[in-house]
């Protein structure tokens, strides 16, 4: 029995040592990955920061006005173009039956 328990204890200790090493190595590995991710995150954050500044620079009102004048047929909104929803022209009556839709051939009604 003595010899048996010594062997059993040896196996248990050996197992524990092996397990402990495995965990330690895995943790080291994970910490390395974490550090890599942290660095990447920091780099991205800095890049985002720089890009935000660039975004603000490219969206200067003066530049937007110049671009809009060059590429768009749009002018600043005038007071006369703002109207209340009640003053909108009434929309055409909505067809409620199939008959009202006309022939089913898909030809658009005048």
């Amino acid at each position, binding site marked *: 029995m003595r010899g048996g328990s010594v062997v059993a204890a040896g196996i248990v200790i050996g197992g524990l040592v092996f397990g402990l090493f495995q965990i330690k190595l895995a943790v080291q590995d994970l910490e390395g990955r974490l550090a890599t991710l942290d660095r990447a995150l*920091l780099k991205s954050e800095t890049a985002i920061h720089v890009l935000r500044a660039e975004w603000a620079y490219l969206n200067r009102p003066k530049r937007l006005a110049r671009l809009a004048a060059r590429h768009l047929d749009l002018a600043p909104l005038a007071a006369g173009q703002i*109207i209340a929803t009640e003053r909108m022209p009434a929309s055409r009556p909505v067809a409620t039956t199939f008959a009202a839709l006309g022939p089913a051939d898909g030809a658009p009604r005048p």
Partner: protein
Amino acid sequence: MIRRATPPETDPVVVDRRVRLDGLAHRALKVGRHRLMVAAGLFAVAYGVVGLRLIDVTLFNDGFEPPVARSAPLRHAQLARRDIVDRNGVLLATNLPTASLYADPKRVLDPADAASKLARALPGLSRATVLEKLASRRRFVWIKRNLAPRQQDAVNRLGLPGIAFQRAEERVYPQGRLFSHAVGFTDVDGRGLAGIEKTFDGALRGAAGDDAPPLRLTLDARIQYLLRAELARGMAAFRAKGAAGVVMDATGGAVRAMVSLPDFDPNRDRDGAARFNRVTLGAYEMGSTFKIFTLAMALDAGVVSLRDGYDAGKPLRVARFVIRDYKPAKGWLSVPEIFIESSNIGSAKMARDVGAKIQRAYLSRLGLLTAAEIELPEVATPLVPSPWRDIATMTVGYGHGIAVSPLQLTAAVAAVVNGGVFYPPTLIPREPGAPRVGWRAISARTSAKMRWLIKRVVEDGTGKKAAVPGYAVGGKTGTAEKPGRGGYRRKALISSFVAAFPIDEPRFVIFVMYDEPRGTKATSNFATGGWTAAPAVARIVARLGPLAGLPPSDAKQRTRVLDIAFKGGEGVAF
């Protein structure tokens, strides 16, 4: 310990093998045994304690060690200075990481070669100065601060020993000239030197980084832009020396735009006369816009009513001064006419009837006698008459003999039209839920009368050119001759216009001023406020109204307005 041998069980013959000792030897043995027992007991107790402690520490640990191991917290991009944003989150000032180039001259092998290579790689760097630095006996010299990434790459390619980079930060103003005076700028080491950057230097420097909230201002980049564009256009058209403009919330004192021209690019040239902020640091005799306050105080104090009037037919002689009108009236003018036609004589007489004491009390409540409480270091102290004689009371009545900043005037006009409460102008938004800090300057009834009167000025007075189709604007012109040697200079004018809109329920107060404008053919060579500043105000209102989603006033019955959506920073206002 002495072991007593036990007789083997298998042996049937009992043999007593025990040794018996008597006498001296027996006692000595006994003492030795006791000592061994005591020593062994002590050891057992000691090991027992260690063992128990081991169990305690490993199994029942008491919180000295966290049950779950955590890695060091994530470091955020740490920047030395917080951002500044406008009310909608548009970036006005930010820190960008850069690299600064330095050298350790002792480790530079060939200074002449290194200097010419560096001068070639970095345009704008003179070979001579670099050589002088590299040949010096110091161990550290800056070659160039804040390199662009491409320049850094170019220098790296040279592979010069003794030359290295240090991570640095540069303050960048993406909006360029747009906010030059309001936001201000910092020096190369990131210390605020002007504007908001100086006022909030400490707050901006503490706790920076991407997780630190930016400093938010009340300014609005869109309004700022359209105000600046209009002022720049007018300044060029009238060949003016300068221009100033303010857009302020009628209630609450929030400044939405503040432009002083000429301005400067805070990213580049920051020196010279352009640094002067005409809006807050300039004190000007405003002229007729002051008649707003004279009339408001006269009505509020019950000195005159709208049915009263004054004889404005003859120039008014007081001591050695003569007060004249720009367009002399036929004779008697009613109080509204004095205001609408902007009569100096009538206003002077009205101010005389109000009296110096009441005048000063009202002007003080309108914030016109002390420096404005804006969050900028560049603030003018108003120039007020001292002593405040009768003649001063009369000239102040039409805006002469007292010089205030455009910001003060705008805030005071806001108080007159918004129902009578003065709010100190501010660039920092209120905390949500915080009360507005203001005080009553005139009664709500007087304010209503004043709104009607300044509306009349635009409808059929000196401010007709400020009229905008679709929006009801009220305003007052102001044209003052600039003081020069031995009196006023007839050709050097401060021409201004102050307006509130929509006038029936003011949202914004707008002030536009040109410094020494010259008339053009289009203005029939007039350079007065009504001809120069009033049209600018009209154009600003025409842009600002739709921008702010204000319903056109010729359709007051409409209850709902089409929503105008803006894309932009988080939390778009209006």
